[in-house]
């Protein structure tokens, strides 16, 4: 994967396959401890304990068509490459949380990528799922939630072009405020 937004897209697909109705994505950059954390938490059907043990192996998968599943192992590899690690917490029928960390200043740390496009694409493809995005740095925090947007829109669907454009601008400004100058790929 070329950047974190593509990894995010990939991991959220697992939440969708697990029939989650809510997915919370949080990205935290803390320059004091030089740590970037990307966390994806869902309320899907969870992962069986027996599977959880070797979930990061590319040869672990629940799909029936073939014996490989690369998503989680690729994210773990990207994380390890930047002195970070990947943790998965899951409880059957309650949900799963995937947390990947990265050393911000590491030369091999993947750039953030287009987080906005990932979120908008997810909304278009799964408008019935509630997505929450929380971006934070040491002292500030930005929050976007599809549930709030839908409450405001009432009978107008969230997939209307005008609404999607508003969401794009809204998230982009959030990224700029929170990560501008904090992550060197985002200009302040």
């Amino acid at each position: 994967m070329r950047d974190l937004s593509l990894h995010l897209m990939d991991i959220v697909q697992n939440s969708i396959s697990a029939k989650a109705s809510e997915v919370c994505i949080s990205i935290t950059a803390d320059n004091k401890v030089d740590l970037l954390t990307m966390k994806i938490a869902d309320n899907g059907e969870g992962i069986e304990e027996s599977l959880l043990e070797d979930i990061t192996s590319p040869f672990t998968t629940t799909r029936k068509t073939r014996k490989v599943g690369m998503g989680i192992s690729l994210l773990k590899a990207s994380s390890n490459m930047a002195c970070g690690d990947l943790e998965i917490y899951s409880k059957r029928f309650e949900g799963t949380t995937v947390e990947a960390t990265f050393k911000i200043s590491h030369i091999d740390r993947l750039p953030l990528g287009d987080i906005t496009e990932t979120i908008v694409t997810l909304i278009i493809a799964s408008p019935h799922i509630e997505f929450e995005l929380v971006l934070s740095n040491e002292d500030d925090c930005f929050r976007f939630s599809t549930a709030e947007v839908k409450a405001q829109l009432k009978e107008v669907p969230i997939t209307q072009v005008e609404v999607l454009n508003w969401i794009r601008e809204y998230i982009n400004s959030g990224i700029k405020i929170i990560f501008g100058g904090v992550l060197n790929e985002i200009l302040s």
Partner: protein
Amino acid sequence: MKSLAELEEIRKKTLDQMSLRKGNDGMRVIVGMATCGIAAGARPVMSAFVEEINKRNLTDVTVTMTGCIGVCRLEPVVEIIDKDGNKVTYVKMTPEKAARIVAEHIVNGRVCVDYTIGEAEK
């Protein structure tokens, strides 16, 4: 900073137009969005489809995503299913190809044969 209150304005504006945009029985565009697809560039392909379809105001076309379609070496893969259930599978997609497919296949009903899986496998 933008605020949620702006959505109220958008809501009012789109409500008037919404009565014109009804019916969901048209074509379906399905983009393969598994690890293989994403790594090969499926996200910009899906964005291109959505953008082109909105630009042309094709309100009865739906764009969705699915998991791995099964031919990872030919990703990004896009399937287009018409009202009668006929399916065309396009492979090695790019945003540029997406624009052409919207214009020729979705609007004018002419399949872009050179982008299909049958051609790629020859």
